[in-house]
């Protein structure tokens, strides 16, 4: 009987303590609230993101309370702390958490919730709050390539560009010893086996340049189609926005006929770029004109056409005509100089790195500068896309 009594009192004491602990736990958990703010959302995969969380909760006497913010899955905590301790004070307390995470998988990632750990002298328990409001906001992670460090360093005797490359290229730049954090897929297993320690391949960066947007403004001294002009402005603005979103910077060349007006070079700020475009995007005065001048390749092809015609026609009158035309073209070819416009374009292009260009023009009046420009770009292995608002002129201007 006495042993039963002693055991009964012990069980009663333990049960009582547990019920008291459970009551305190419920009150504490019910008081916990979290409000997170992100430095930016959406975020690109692999880039650090600053998270600030305001945690509200109340403590309880003789109870240790720890509240931890649970970061989204597939993210890495790189800086800061995600846990706060609440004082054993029944009043409501506010704590701020600040930390940096790096998402390593793209997609939508809600936060994992909040973890509340409560303990007293006898018991300890953890409750994970994963209600919808505890998991807000949903982190939107955009895909991205491998973020490669600068592939060349002067200390290694290279003279390549030190610009950060977004996309990993395919060419192997060098090898170096493996260090923790390196991608295991980059390990060169043959070399590693040969030297008995891990070596990773370093790849050259692959450049991904935005297209150059060339805007050919109409001559202010002649009438221009206002509707088409507005459409062209709208198209250019849309393309500038799209290019900025995709490549983070944009270059715009403004010309009017064979006159270079302005170059917006690798602009990263959309509002600044748009305000510059607003300043320049209107019909301009043309100091130089080509007067439908054929360039040297056009003249050579015209000479060839005349010679072909001369051989094929038996008519003496037509032969005399072809001969006269051929002599005229040859004379022009002999005295024609490379226009200053070509040199100006070449100098302008040397300031930007491009592999593609979009040329917007109304196509009214003389379009010989468009042909010249297109040929010049193509000669530098730059793909040219010509957008002429008037479809009939577009066919004529195609290089």
């Amino acid at each position: 009987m006495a042993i039963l009594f002693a055991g009964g009192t012990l069980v009663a004491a333990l049960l009582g303590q547990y019920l008291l602990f459970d009551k305190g736990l419920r009150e504490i958990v019910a008081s916990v609230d979290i409000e997170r703010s992100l430095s930016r959302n959406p975020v690109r995969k692999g880039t650090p993101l600053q998270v600030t969380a305001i945690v509200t909760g109340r403590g309880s006497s003789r109870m240790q309370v720890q509240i931890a913010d649970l970061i989204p899955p597939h993210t890495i905590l790189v800086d800061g702390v995600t846990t706060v301790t609440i004082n054993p004070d029944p009043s409501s307390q506010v704590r701020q958490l600040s930390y940096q995470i790096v998402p390593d998988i793209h997609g939508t990632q809600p936060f994992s919730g909040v973890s509340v750990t409560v303990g007293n002298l006898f018991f300890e328990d953890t409750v994970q709050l994963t209600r919808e409001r505890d998991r807000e906001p949903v982190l939107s992670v955009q895909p991205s390539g491998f973020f490669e460090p600068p592939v060349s360093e002067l200390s290694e005797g290279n003279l390549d560009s030190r610009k950060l490359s977004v996309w990993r290229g395919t060419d192997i730049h060098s090898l170096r010893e493996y260090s923790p954090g390196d991608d295991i897929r980059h390990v060169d297993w043959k070399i590693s086996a040969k030297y008995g320690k891990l070596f990773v391949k370093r790849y050259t960066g692959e450049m991904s340049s935005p297209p150059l947007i060339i805007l050919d403004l109409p001559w202010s001294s002649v009438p221009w189609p206002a509707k088409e002009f507005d459409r062209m402005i709208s198209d250019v603005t849309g393309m500038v926005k799209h290019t900025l979103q995709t490549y983070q910077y944009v270059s715009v060349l403004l010309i009017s006929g064979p006159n270079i007006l302005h170059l917006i070079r690798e602009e990263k700020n959309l509002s600044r770029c748009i305000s510059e475009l607003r300043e320049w995007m209107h019909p301009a005065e043309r100091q130089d004109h080509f007067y439908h001048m054929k360039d040297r390749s056009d003249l050579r092809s015209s000479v060839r056409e005349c010679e072909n015609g001369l051989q094929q026609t038996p008519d003496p009158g037509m032969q005399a005509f072809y001969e006269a035309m051929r002599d005229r073209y040859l004379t022009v070819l002999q005295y024609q100089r490379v226009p200053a416009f070509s040199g100006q374009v070449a100098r302008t292009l040397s300031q930007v790195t491009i592999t593609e260009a979009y040329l917007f023009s109304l196509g009214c009046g003389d379009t010989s500068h468009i042909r010249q420009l297109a040929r010049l770009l193509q000669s530098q292995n730059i793909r040219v896309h010509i957008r002429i608002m008037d479809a009939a002129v577009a066919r004529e201007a195609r290089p």
Partner: protein
Amino acid sequence: MTPPQPEYPFFIALAIGVTGISVLLGSPAWYLNIALLLLVCGILVITRTLHERGFYLVCAGEPLVVACGIMNLWAGLFSACMLAGIVYGALGLLESQKDLIPFALFCGGSFIIALLIQVSNHVPLALLVIGGLTAVILAIQSVRTYQFRKQYTGA
């Protein structure tokens, strides 16, 4: 000057009570109660700086509760309540008047258990009642815990 620690008044009460009851009841094993009382006293002094003081005190005090309970059930109840006071005081759970509520609840619960044992002449019946009550409380608590976690985990 440091304030008197609450476990010592409870120990003094326990010592006086156990000695008095042993003398009054003329128990043939009175020396056992005194020996176990001295054991509690020794543990109380030795474990002053130890972190798990409460555990050691419970381990040392329970044999005294059993010994007193063999002598007289109400003496066992008295020693159990005093031991609870000592342990609560040693753990710092008797710092305010509000803290007396759990202690009083424990004393009340122990009284009910003692009463139950007193009225039932057989151990299995009392054991069944105490075990059944504990099981019911634990079952209710399990359901409450499940509902609580379901509410907060959004499941």
